[in-house]
């Protein structure tokens, strides 16, 4: 029975101001199983130290190191006792506190080495505590400022954009990039041959096919524009041959040296 009431009994060996641990600051005493929550409420060792200092109305500028260190150690011990995973920063801070305390026990060296050793060993800790506290307070004030969405809403009246939504703009550069991407991929796949090709032939193939769209025979010469230069006429001729090769057009000649007719491949146009 007695052993089961452990939470109520003082934790042996842990005393603060000579009082058992249970007498720790009232609002700080938490059942061990809730310790984790408390640990989370502190943002780290500086926060915990500040709490202990403020709780006991200690002057940060003149911290009684012995007292503070004792309290802090008690706290750490309590955390460890409950096998809470203690962030390394807490242990590091314990080391720092002990170091400061021990340095304060040493007799002050004479003014030989001016700056450094005459400095109060607590100075650095004080500086950090105050700086942290300043930011902690700033954070609270910042958090108290009205925040959009949380404390006030923005006005937004509907505007109907009935007129056709904007269409993407495309530039030649985009096409080029797209093709480069294809090339890069084709290269990886290795089985695609990207042949060098005369775009002009492709262009003429399209033009001729368009012209033959009606499905009827068209006189061969009608597919050429006399106004075009010779180079263009050759390209058109190659285009027609290419179309024929791809069986996209039929070329017929009813009699030798007679008129040549071209039409889109028959089955092609018959729907």
């Amino acid at each position, binding site marked *: 029975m007695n052993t089961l009431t452990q939470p109520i009994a003082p934790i042996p060996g842990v005393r603060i101001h000579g009082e058992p641990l249970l007498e720790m600051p009232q609002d700080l005493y938490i059942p061990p199983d809730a310790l984790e929550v408390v640990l989370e409420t502190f943002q780290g060792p500086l926060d915990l130290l500040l709490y202990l200092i403020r709780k006991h109305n200690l002057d940060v500028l003149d911290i009684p190191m012995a007292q503070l260190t004792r309290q802090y150690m008690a706290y750490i011990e309590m955390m460890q006792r409950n096998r809470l995973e203690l962030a390394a920063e807490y242990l590091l801070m314990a080391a720092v506190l002990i170091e400061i305390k021990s340095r304060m026990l040493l007799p002050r060296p004479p003014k030989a080495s001016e700056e450094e050793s005459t400095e109060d060993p607590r100075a650095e800790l004080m500086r950090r505590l105050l700086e942290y506290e300043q930011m902690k307070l700033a954070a609270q004030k910042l958090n108290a400022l009205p925040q959009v969405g949380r404390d006030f809403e923005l006005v937004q*009246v*509907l*505007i109907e954009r009935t007129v056709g*939504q904007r269409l993407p703009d495309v530039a*030649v550069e985009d096409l080029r990039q797209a093709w480069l991407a294809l090339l*890069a991929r084709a290269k990886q796949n290795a089985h695609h041959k990207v042949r060098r*090709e005369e775009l002009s032939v492709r262009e003429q193939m*399209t033009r001729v*096919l368009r012209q033959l769209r009606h499905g009827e025979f068209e006189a061969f010469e009608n597919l050429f524009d006399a106004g075009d230069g010779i180079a263009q006429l050759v390209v058109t001729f190659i285009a027609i041959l290419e179309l024929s090769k791809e069986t996209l057009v039929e070329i017929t000649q009813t009699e030798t040296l007679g008129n040549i007719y071209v039409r889109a491949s028959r089955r*092609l146009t018959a729907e």
Partner: protein
Amino acid sequence: MSGQAEDLLQSEAEPVIEAGAVIEMAQPIDAARLKNILETALLTTQEPLSLAELKKLSDAPVENNLVENLLEQLAQECAGRGVELNRVANGWRFRARPEMQAYLDRLNPQKPPRYSRAVMETLAIIAYRQPVTRGDIEEIRGVAVSAQILKTLEARGWIDVIGTRDTPGKPSLYATTKQLLDDLNLRSLQELPPLEEMNSLIEQGEQAPMP
């Protein structure tokens, strides 16, 4: 939070209204104030607010009639302004008058939408390889090409079907249109970047510049 809201309220010259405060019984409804709240709610919400929702904004129970009257008043106060309060199927909402759109469009340097990579690659293939079937495009891209992509480009007037190939299934042959050239500010397809040049770009660096 609530403490903060209170502070703010206390410093206002206006009478204090506390969220969720119990209103003394038989307190007359402050119509002007309710109108204010209704307006604020409607101005901060793009979706229409139903009468039921709007009634929730009153601290004391309120008649439909009163709320509707206030809404009518608000609507009338919009006369001559750039926004109007409309009653729509789902309730009430403010909207900008259509004639304001031309002005508001000036503010919207919305980044123009971009076509997906799939669309751009399909367009590039059609441009450089026309006439091509969907199958051809898929072979080059190495992945399926959705009908949606081709439809997008057709709707834009940039490609069209100029025939079908005489193979099983009679696939449509796609080619680019003059419209595309116009939109790209080109006189002919030959003004497209030459492929060989691009080839060298790829060969030089292993890392292809991806779009």
